[in-house]
């Protein structure tokens, strides 16, 4: 019979936001322990087929728990241990239990929670307002010096330089920007560093009559501002 601490920890874990950051390995271990404690040492059903990957992984985890622990008490202890690591506070939980005494769960399988998959973003029914962001058409990635500066693709620029060692790094693109303008504006520190190390011209003005330093300052990229002010 699971203890009230166990039930409280299970309730906590089923909703804890910290759990979303936890690896599947831990989640599966928790699942195996949970089933051990609540339903019995090993699964009674046969192992799900290879096509039911989730079901199979869960079955395996439960089965592994059954092999690792000889009594439910040990499995429960391990479960509480993980729960505490994930931020469950037994004291807080106990006092909460006090306020709302839990009724005996007659159904031994209190495993009411879905797995992580197949969670829709609509709040569970779709009614309410909608979250919107600025509509955006993805632009083609340009495999050019300027394109790499925009995309923060350091390796792209390095590769390009090894292919074309005398590449003009101060070249203006069709919109009138140098790679340094673009990298300073978008806040790509490593690209700015690379370009400066190659001795690019910091004083070139963009179509709005701004040098790279001014662009970085307006946008608030402090590190780039100090780099360009040197």
């Amino acid at each position, binding site marked *: 019979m699971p203890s009230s601490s166990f*039930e*409280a920890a299970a*309730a906590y874990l*089923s*909703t804890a*936001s910290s759990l979303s950051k936890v690896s599947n390995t831990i989640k599966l271990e928790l699942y195996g322990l949970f089933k051990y404690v609540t339903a019995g040492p090993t699964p009674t059903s046969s192992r799900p087929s290879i096509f039911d990957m989730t079901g199979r992984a869960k079955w395996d985890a439960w089965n592994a728990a059954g092999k690792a622990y000889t009594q439910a008490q040990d499995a429960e202890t391990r479960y509480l241990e993980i729960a505490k690591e994930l931020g469950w506070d037994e004291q807080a939980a106990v006092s909460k239990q006090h306020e*709302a005494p*839990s*009724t005996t*769960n*007659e*159904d031994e399988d*209190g495993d*009411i*929670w*879905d*797995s*992580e998959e*197949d*969670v*829709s*973003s*609509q*709040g*569970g*029914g*779709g*009614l*309410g*307002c*909608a*979250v*919107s*962001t*600025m*509509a*955006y*058409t993805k*632009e083609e990635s*340009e495999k050019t010096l300027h394109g790499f500066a*925009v995309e923060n693709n350091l390796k792209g620029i390095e590769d390009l330089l090894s292919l074309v060692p005398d590449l003009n790094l101060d070249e203006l693109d069709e*919109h009138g*920007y140098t790679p340094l*303008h*673009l990298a300073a*504006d*978008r*806040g790509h520190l490593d690209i700015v560093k690379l370009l400066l190390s190659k001795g690019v011209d910091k004083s070139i003005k*963009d179509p*709005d009559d*701004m040098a790279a330093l*001014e*662009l970085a300052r*307006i*946008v*608030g990229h402090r590190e780039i501002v100090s780099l360009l002010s040197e």
Partner: protein
Amino acid sequence: MASKDQQKQPPTGIAPAEEHEEEEQTDSEDEPHDPDQAVGSSTTALASDSKKKKKKKSKVSRALSALKGKSKIPDELVNSVLDRAKAEESIPEGELTPDNIRDALEQLKIMDVVQGKVGLGGLNKKDMGAHKFWGTQPVPQPGEGPPIDDGYIEPTKPREEVRQEPYPLHKDFEWSFLDISDPKQCKEVYDLLSANYVEDDQASFRFQYSAEFLQWALMPPGYHKEWHIGVRVTTTKKLVAFISGVPMTLRVRKNVINVTEINYLCVHKRLRSKRLAPVLIKEVTRQTHLKGIFQAIYTAGVIVPTPISTCRYFHRSLNVPKLVDIGFCYVPRNMTLARMTRLNAAPGATVLPGLREMEEKDILQVASLFTRFMQRFSLAPIYDIGEIQHQFLSGRGEGSIGDGGQGRRERQVTWSYVVEDPGTQQITDFFSFYSLPSTVIGNQKHPVLEAAYLYYYATTVAFEPGAEGEEGHLKRRLETLITDALVVANDAKFDVFNALTLMDNVSLLQDLKFGPGDGYLNFYLYNWRTAPLSGMNAEADVPAGKGIGVVML
């Protein structure tokens, strides 16, 4: 409406509607209505000639059905679109190449629509499966066409004929009324929503309604505690689902009806397979019936049967560097973030003489201005004095401005301003907006997006002859008024100012540098028929936006 489901209810008592698995199956080729629906119903404007469209579309729809599971857009679909576009002669001949069509379709992410991952404009998703539930509800059903007369679908029932006992839940769960005036219970709703409520399609942002927002939105004058309905886990009492209604007097064209405004339907992320949503809707409907209310208004980002209007979100960037940083918007290749920032900088000060915060003494004048102004829209709330007080003043927060951060009081939810004519001391205009932040999911540097949403506004200029229209002075006055709203919002450190294509907004959005969003909002009435209303698109002789005068929170 309940009896039909009840007979079919499984012994567990959970939700009458379909299971997820079924949903997947019915999504298959032999039910072409799904892709059809997604293509045809992004606005209801098409409803009137839906027959004709259906026929035309059958070829497309066959093509769509045939290619589920593949992500490349097949020639058959491209050619079919090509043929139709040629027939309609709406695109210059030279631009009609298969490659162009393919590109356009790819941009529309049409394959995602076909495969049911998303609907047009990011709508729908899998919720198409919810149509089975809506098929049992008194709402206009697909293919009905617009009604001849406005009116109810199901007649009002006397109280004793309303189902008296709550709908059954699985024994793991139990019903619970939430007392929102109790900070502890309000916090429970806040916790549920902030972790589980609506997100954008990329799961980058999730609404974070504050506790004080919920108190403001859920406790207008005459609210009923019985309409704030939760589902708790039987053993732990943890709140895992919620739905709410608040009373509203609504004018729908010529009829004034008492409705409940349904909102904040939320089911815990990991209980979505339990089909709690339909039973929540049925229970709040039952509670509404018990109070003698038989109509409701609600909105959704998704399409279910049957929207009366669809509006699109627009966004005015205020803090451009942050918005770019969190992926809310992007810097186009042909400009700099620095230029974008400069172009979107809000003016430093408001310009309307006599602009000041609304106060208690303004309530009567604001009420009469509001009432007169809102008559210009087909669908609008009717507020009495108490409701005006609540909507525009009760959310103003505590302490003085600055206590809750720059430009804000503590716990401030709404900002309401009036323009008092310095000569006559009459209130000539007012505007309001509210704070609805979103969590920026997984972002340590910027955990919260501070968003202001345009709420109600009005101006006496609308009543002057010749004010309406593209060149009329109403448009110019509202531009000035809402620009002042942007200034106030910017001073209060909002990152973005959002508005929908409703009321007079459409005429203002472009000039005030709002950009189109990827989100849409569909408006619905429960148990009431009316013809489509102008939202994102114009309907009949009503210009875009002016069908809708209701802002849902």
